[in-house]
């Protein structure tokens, strides 16, 4: 039925693991399989491999090796950061500030904390998806113990003023966590100069394996443990270490942050080419998110009169892998909270398409994708009653 070639434009959902990363992981499955907590040679090798990976992660974000703790992914890092900080600081206060456009790993953790008696302030964002630092400053109270604002958004790609947010928190002695899951390999990060206390990352977003991530905890910052058990990760995160995953994360992050400018320029150039064609050549289309403060590979556009899930199905049929903020694809029938937060009416949110480009995309992909998107939009509009109404109401039927 469908074409067999896949043009993958959903790199914010996940990425293919780089074959070089898989290669590096392989010996740690069946040859050097020792449990790092044990005493013998096989175990010492695993321990060394873990520490080497930790060093790479630290280096990639300007941290020190003993500030990095491995987790099972971005979700665990976010849960640990928020719950761990909240419980550790409960005596100081019960107020947490976050933004209206966080990933569910943050918002649902906040919902949980709310049930436990914490108060959550959701900072609004402007029409481009940015938090205003002044809003943050005025939301801070004597009871504020934690601020969590994502570095860049997974749907609309908007980048937040992280150094300024960090500075505002540091000034008031409030812990600052940022979910940087979408950022590694896309923007340079330096936890020191950016005043970041806690930072989440996840390997599968930058050509590493799924099921492995890390939490950066600035030295001196004390948060409660989250996974209780054995004494792994300097007694901060229990569980037998996923050695192949950790090794893969190390290799992936080292590659991700090297040559960053060249790679992001390449992706940004392709992105802009595709984005410009969509905005100029398909009428009744708008860009969601910020024009410049935006992840290099991210496109998020809304096509009036159509619904995103149908659009994805047509694109899938053409071999294009993409994403939408439409409720109809979410299993919950709620359109994306991010698109609503930047002020999109629900019906426009329904017609949104997210394309997130990556290293393997080419000029040919762009042309092909554009043609298919245009055809699909036209096809869906042709069957849309909203579009029919619109055509009738226009002064002349062009």
């Amino acid at each position, binding site marked *: 039925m469908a074409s067999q070639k896949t043009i993958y434009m959903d790199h914010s959902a996940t990425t293919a693991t780089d074959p070089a990363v898989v290669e590096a992981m392989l010996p740690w499955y069946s040859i050097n399989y020792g*449990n790092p907590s044990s005493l013998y040679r096989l175990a010492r090798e695993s321990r060394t491999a873990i520490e080497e990976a930790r060093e790479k992660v630290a280096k990639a974000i300007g941290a020190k090796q003993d500030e990095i703790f491995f987790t099972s992914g971005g979700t665990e890092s976010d849960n640990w950061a928020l719950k761990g900080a909240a419980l550790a600081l409960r005596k100081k206060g019960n107020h947490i500030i976050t933004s209206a456009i966080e990933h569910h790993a943050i918002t649902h953790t906040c919902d949980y904390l709310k049930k436990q008696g914490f108060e959550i302030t959701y900072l609004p964002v402007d029409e481009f998806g940015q938090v205003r630092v002044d809003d943050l400053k005025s939301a801070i109270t004597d009871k504020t113990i934690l601020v969590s604002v994502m570095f860049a958004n997974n749907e609309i790609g908007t980048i937040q003023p992280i150094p300024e947010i960090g500075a505002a928190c540091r000034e008031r002695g409030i812990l600052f966590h940022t979910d940087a899951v979408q950022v590694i390999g896309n923007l340079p990060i330096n936890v020191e100069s950016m005043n970041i206390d806690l930072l989440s990352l996840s390997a599968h977003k930058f050509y590493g394996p799924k099921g492995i991530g890390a939490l950066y905890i600035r030295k001196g910052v004390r948060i409660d443990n989250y996974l209780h*058990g054995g004494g792994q990760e300097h*007694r901060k995160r229990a569980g037998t270490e996923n050695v192949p995953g950790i090794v893969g994360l190390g290799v992936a992050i080292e590659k991700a942050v090297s040559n960053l400018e060249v790679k992001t320029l390449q992706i940004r150039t392709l992105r802009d080419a595709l984005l410009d064609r969509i905005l100029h050549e398909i009428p009744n289309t708008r860009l969601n998110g910020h024009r410049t403060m935006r992840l290099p590979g991210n496109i998020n556009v809304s096509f009036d009169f159509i619904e995103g899930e149908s659009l994805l199905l047509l694109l899938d049929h053409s071999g294009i892998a993409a994403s939408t903020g439409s409720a109809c694809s979410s299993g919950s029938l709620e359109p994306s909270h991010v698109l609503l937060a930047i002020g999109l009416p629900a019906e426009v949110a329904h017609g949104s398409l997210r394309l997130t480009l990556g290293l393997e995309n080419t000029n040919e992909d762009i042309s092909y994708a554009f043609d298919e998107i245009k055809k699909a939009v036209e096809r869906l509009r042709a069957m849309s009653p909203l579009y029919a109404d619109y055509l009738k109401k226009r002064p002349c039927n062009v």
Partner: protein
Amino acid sequence: MYSEKVMDHFMNPRNQGEITDADGVGEVGNPTCGDIMRIFLTVKDNIITDVKFQTFGCGAAVASSSMATELIKGKTLEEAWDVSNKAVAEALEGLPPIKMHCSVLAEEGIHKAINDYRVKNGLEPWEEKEGHTHSHDELTCEE
């Protein structure tokens, strides 16, 4: 986890054994904590001419005993008294932090043995530091 020097002294302990007619014997540690060290001295003209040890304990405890006996052999009692656990650990090219107390054990064993000699010979014992204790931290787990 252990330096090559520790492993060398563990695998090939120097001065291991017993001196049956020792001039001074010192025993420290506690089997409950998993460590007992016994130091035997032969002293001639205030000089340690022979030293031997017996140790029940971990790799660091065995290596510390071995190194400590090396360090004090041929020394005067005063010089031997001043051999600190830090000196033992340094000579071993370092010990993991959790294992530092095993070197303390060696220092204390030497002090006990020297004082045993002194008391047996009608001399005032020198003042020893407080007894060695394990730091009973939080529990950890093996795997």
